[in-house]
């Protein structure tokens, strides 16, 4: 029972993070290695607001989320858009460079010290009892946030004109541009949404654990569920995240705590060998050599 709760909470965080990889990949065919750093930056913005407002969540959460969205748009406009037409490998390296830049700026601004946003919260994170499982208010909130985010995303993609444009641009950018869709605006929106999700994950991750410039590695690890689910499937990340969370929690419980770090990657390598396009990705995406 406790295991199930742990798996669910981890799934929610992984799914929020991994969705960013999928959105960015769909929009610009780029694997963004800066995503972990963008998550870390979102966490720092949240922490700074929290300290500045004396723990006022109603102010700092919206500010952090809006900042996350704007940072995503800015990264696209400043770093990725000028390189349109370059080889994909170059653009991936640009995201790597942007990531390093964010990390070093964060270290210079906030220093390398480990921070605990949980201490700045206005309330104590109280544990609840359900059956024989223990979960906290934040766990519940992270589940709810992930649920709301995904419902919102599905509604956006499936029900609105904007979503149709986003799907069209993801499927065939050239055709979409020729049909009069401003694809740069759509791609910028995808980057913004991706970083919005990453910041949302950062709120919960940093309050649960801690915040330091090295938090980026946690965010980067979320590429595993994205790949397992399929890089171009927005809802594939949910089962992907569930699998990774399950593997991680079970490995920690029954095998060896050290296995937590390598188990997801072994699963990923296996998945890449057997089904490289992911559980729900389209097959044409990876052309056989």
């Amino acid at each position: 029972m406790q295991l199930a709760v742990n798996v669910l909470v981890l799934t929610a965080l992984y799914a929020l993070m991994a969705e960013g990889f999928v959105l960015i990949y769909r929009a610009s065919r780029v694997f963004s290695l800066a995503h972990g750093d963008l998550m870390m930056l979102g966490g720092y913005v949240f922490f700074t607001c929290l300290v500045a407002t004396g723990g006022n969540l109603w102010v700092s959460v919206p500010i952090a989320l809006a900042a996350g969205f704007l940072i995503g748009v800015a990264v696209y406009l400043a770093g990725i858009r000028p390189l349109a037409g370059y080889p994909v490998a170059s653009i991936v390296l640009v995201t790597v460079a942007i990531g390093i830049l964010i990390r070093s700026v964060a270290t210079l601004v906030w220093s390398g010290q480990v921070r605990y946003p949980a201490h700045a919260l206005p309330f104590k994170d109280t544990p609840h009892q359900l059956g024989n499982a223990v979960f906290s208010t934040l766990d519940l909130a992270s589940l709810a946030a992930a649920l709301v985010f995904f419902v919102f995303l599905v509604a956006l993609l499936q029900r609105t004109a904007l979503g149709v444009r986003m799907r069209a641009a993801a499927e065939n950018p050239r055709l979409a541009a020729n049909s009069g869709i401003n694809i740069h605006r759509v791609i910028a929106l995808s980057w913004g949404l991706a970083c919005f999700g990453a910041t949302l994950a950062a709120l919960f991750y940093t309050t649960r654990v801690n915040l330091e410039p090295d938090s980026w590695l946690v965010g980067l690890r979320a590429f595993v569920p994205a790949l397992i689910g399929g890089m171009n499937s927005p809802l594939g990340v949910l089962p992907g995240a569930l699998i990774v969370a399950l593997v991680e929690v079970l490995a920690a419980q029954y095998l060896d705590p050290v296995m937590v770090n390598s188990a997801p990657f072994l699963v990923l390598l296996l998945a890449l060998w057997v089904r490289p396009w992911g559980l729900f990705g389209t097959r044409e995406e990876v052309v056989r050599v």
Partner: protein
Amino acid sequence: MATNASGFFKAGYSSEFGFWETPWRRFWVLAGLALAAAFPFFAPTFWIGVVNLAAIAAIGALALNLVTGYTGQLSLGHSGFLAAGAFTVGILVGQWSMPVCVTLPAAIVIGMGVGVFVGVPALRLRGIYLSISTLAAYFVIASLASEYQSRFGGGAGFVIPPPQIGSWVLSGERNWYFVLLALVALATLLCLNLNRSHVGRAWLAIRERDLAASAMGIDVSFYKVMAFVISTAMTSLAGALLAYYTAFVSAEAFTFMVTIEYLAMILIGGLGSVLGSLLGALFVTLLPFLVERAVEQLPFPATFKTHMFAVQSGLFAILMLAFLMFEPLGLARIWGRIRAYFELWPFRYRPLP
């Protein structure tokens, strides 16, 4: 490039495949080697040590350039391949006290094994998915290495005594310098020869368009896996040398940042250029030392001094961005332009054939 800037034209396949483009090229290379051999006799010991590190990095950068620059497959696992070589030495020497003539070949063999492990996804994957699988392989190797270290290395790492051949012990910066110079020369020779043979032409064809390459009868998967195997074997050797040179092996030394440093080397130096790998390795290894000097001498805010690593990596990122955006062919291209300028002087353009 078929012609030199001076208007030297190649007249047949034999000169196209020839090792020396012109007699002058041979003269300059030999002069450069002589200068490199004379370097430790007038340079301070500290800088010899820095150049030694650059030499080890050069072997790794040459190897990475084979996969990423020539074959066009972005490899994100380089740090893991270095770790594989370093840990081979760490385990063989730290636990069983094997001699160097066993550990270095072992590191090469392990490196080849890792190359097959990483290259096998190349049978099914291409482009960015292949890069991701190398990234996943890096995380697997890194976590296995740190796990091994925490179990058998006493948590901190393995101490490696200096390598010994017969009764001769390799120690001292200057001795290391000559050994490493010879190894770098060998690695350079290997890369140059690979690149002017049918293997190198197959790699270039795969880089430009893998479908077209396979249509021309090139076994794409075979050559891709081959590129990975040769590259990881060389990288693993570089990792083993690093272990011996620094006399210490620790999993904490092989972060993802190391991969990025090597990528920066070949990017700044020049993708698909042997000269570029050497220049890039030298440049990227020197950069942190130069930045440290600069920050100490010039009036920068105090936080810059306490977070030297952040300043260095930030500068790194900016350089990477600048080269990616403005000079994707790197220092080698800049050097080529400077050379062409002087060779053509007083004209600005090469004569039309």
